[in-house]
């Protein structure tokens, strides 16, 4: 794979990896506690807070950006992404069910094993994603026009926030607070203990997506061409749906509904690498997603002592970039409709 890479693309990858490392070091050093490796407090802070935070940001950014790319190819819609299509709202609904809704579960037992609680949260989030994805796929056979899909995503978001509101009304204050904090989006909440779950699931999802680069390329041509080229559409689409649900469900359950990253990064990667080839785009999107996530984390730590919420930064940063991309090419704009 690497030997096929042209020199300029190789240099781009190198630059991206270097900036990723620089940003990671910056986020590791910067913070309310001064950085001093001789101080045992620094070591503790690094181990308990900053290293998990950096690893979470990197993997969450990579996973969201990858699921965005998978969705854009799956639905042949350049505006698709886990947030825009309401997939993350499905995940929120799953989490809300787990935190607010499932009162009949034997909580006294579950609370004794934090891993059970963690996994329950993650799986309900993934199931929420999956249900929205299957709904979208089912409906996408029956609609034409790329905007309608996005409107459906919007509708799903409204429906889930409606359901979440109903559940909130019936919930206790402490449950509500933990759900509210979760819904703000943050890379800080993955503890050192949870990290192993987060790393193993996200790495598995990312590795599996890399294996799909050849079928993803042919899928760009549309189902009919892909089928006549010898691709088994059903298999690959099922794989894509599960992968997207795993990636964005995992990230959303750990970090909350992080906005815009998924739809934005694939566009950036296409512009930077000037290609539509998933063999290059997939790794590019992963590294770039990690960079954007770390960058917003770094920006949020700069505004100390009031750390800005992640979604505020991503919204302010992501939205204008997306608008510029969309407005620049009038011809493509027509194709989006």
């Amino acid at each position, binding site marked *: *794979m690497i030997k*096929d890479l042209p020199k300029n693309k190789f240099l781009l990858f190198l630059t991206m990896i270097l900036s990723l490392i620089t940003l990671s070091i910056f986020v590791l050093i910067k913070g309310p506690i001064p950085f001093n490796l001789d101080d045992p407090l620094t070591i503790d802070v690094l181990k308990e807070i900053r290293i998990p935070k950096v690893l979470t940001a990197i993997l969450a950014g990579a996973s969201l950006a990858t699921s965005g790319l998978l969705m*854009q*190819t799956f639905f*042949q819609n*350049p505006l698709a992404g886990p947030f825009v299509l309401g997939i993350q709202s499905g995940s929120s609904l799953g989490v809300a069910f787990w935190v607010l809704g499932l009162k009949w579960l034997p909580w006294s037992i579950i609370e004794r094993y934090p891993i059970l609680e963690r996994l329950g949260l993650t799986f309900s989030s993934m199931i929420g994603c999956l249900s929205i994805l299957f709904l979208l796929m089912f409906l996408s056979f029956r609609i034409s026009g790329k905007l309608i899909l996005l409107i459906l995503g919007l509708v799903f978001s409204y429906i889930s926030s409606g359901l979440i509101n109903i559940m909130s009304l019936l919930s206790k204050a402490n449950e509500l607070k933990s759900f509210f904090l979760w819904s703000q989006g943050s890379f800080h909440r993955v503890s050192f203990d949870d990290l192993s779950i987060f790393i193993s699931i996200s790495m598995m999802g990312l590795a599996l997506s890399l294996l799909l*680069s*050849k079928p993803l*390329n*042919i899928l*760009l*041509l*549309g189902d*009919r*061409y892909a*089928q*006549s*080229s*010898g*691709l*088994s559409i059903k298999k690959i689409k099922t794989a894509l749906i599960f992968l997207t649900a795993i990636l964005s469900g995992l990230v959303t359950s750990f970090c909350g509904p992080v906005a815009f990253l998924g739809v934005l990064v694939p566009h950036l990667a*296409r*512009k930077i690498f*000037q*290609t*539509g*080839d998933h*063999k290059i785009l997939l790794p590019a999107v992963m590294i770039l997603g990690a960079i954007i996530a770390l960058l917003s984390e770094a920006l949020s730590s700069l505004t100390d002592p009031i750390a800005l919420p992640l979604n505020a930064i991503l919204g302010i940063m992501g939205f204008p970039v997306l608008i510029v991309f969309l407005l620049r*090419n009038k*011809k*493509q704009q027509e*194709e989006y409709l």
Partner: protein
Amino acid sequence: MSFKVNNAAEPVLEISKLSIGYEKKPILKDLNLKAFKGEILFVMGSNGSGKSTLLKTLSNLIPPLSGSVSLNGKELKDFSSLGFAKEISILLTERPNLNSMKVKEVLALGRFPYTSFWGSLGSKDENIINEVIELLKIQNLINKNYDTLSDGQKQKVLLGRTLTQDTPLIILDEPTSFLDIPRKIEFLENLKFLAKEKNKMIILSSHDWDFALKASHSLLFIGKDGKYKKGFPEDFYFNKDLKEFLINEGFNISNELSHDSTFKAGGLKIKLNFEDRVEKELTFKALDKRATFLKKIDNSFIISKKKDQPFLIQGTNISSTKINEVSEIIEYLSNS
């Protein structure tokens, strides 16, 4: 079809008792058709007549309602999806949005059935892609972003992708609808090259009768009532019932009447002795197009025809024979 390429040739594509359509609502019933290597078959008919449905059925994209289609004696439904992709390639009317794909990358997609797990191109793949680039003369486009091309250029690149799949049978759904006249002529030359030099079988749908006459060896016309007629395109003109309809459809050859009455087709020396200029031109075209299918031995024939009367063929040492259709002339000349 009623003519054979040579006596030993078996049809590559054999359609028998085929009914097609969607959800038990047949558009076309009981279709029988054979097609050979090196043959260009046009499917004509008005919108909604089922042209596209037929092509999609032949491409295995929708299942037939009944009947069978077989390729080299094997039924379409028995092919594995990858095996099928090595036999039949398609060009559809839909325009995919290719998200910043480079033209070269689009062409490489045609190699999908042949490349390894990662899709890396080998030297054979590169050669085939370069051949297609040269044939279609798109050297200037290969590094451009597909989404920024004009409709005509996109069409060409998509055709290129179909050709890099390098299959014996090529199915094209209305390939000329986005092309202007010079591009159409270029496309026509490419079709002829692929059929004649590369021995490909090409099936395409079109509305353009003039184009069909120039390019096709055989023609399937599907009427609005689901009835169909198959034959040589020239014979559609000699058939009085269809003649007027065809003239209304733009079946026009009044220009470019410029050849001698005596010419060579295959190994045969043929003299045309016709009353009507248009009929003579059509007969010339029909023979010229199929020259490769005719006997290679030296022989000479005189074909004569009065208006509204059958053809008369006379060969050296052979008494004259009455013939009604151009397709029968070809059959006669390739067997006698």
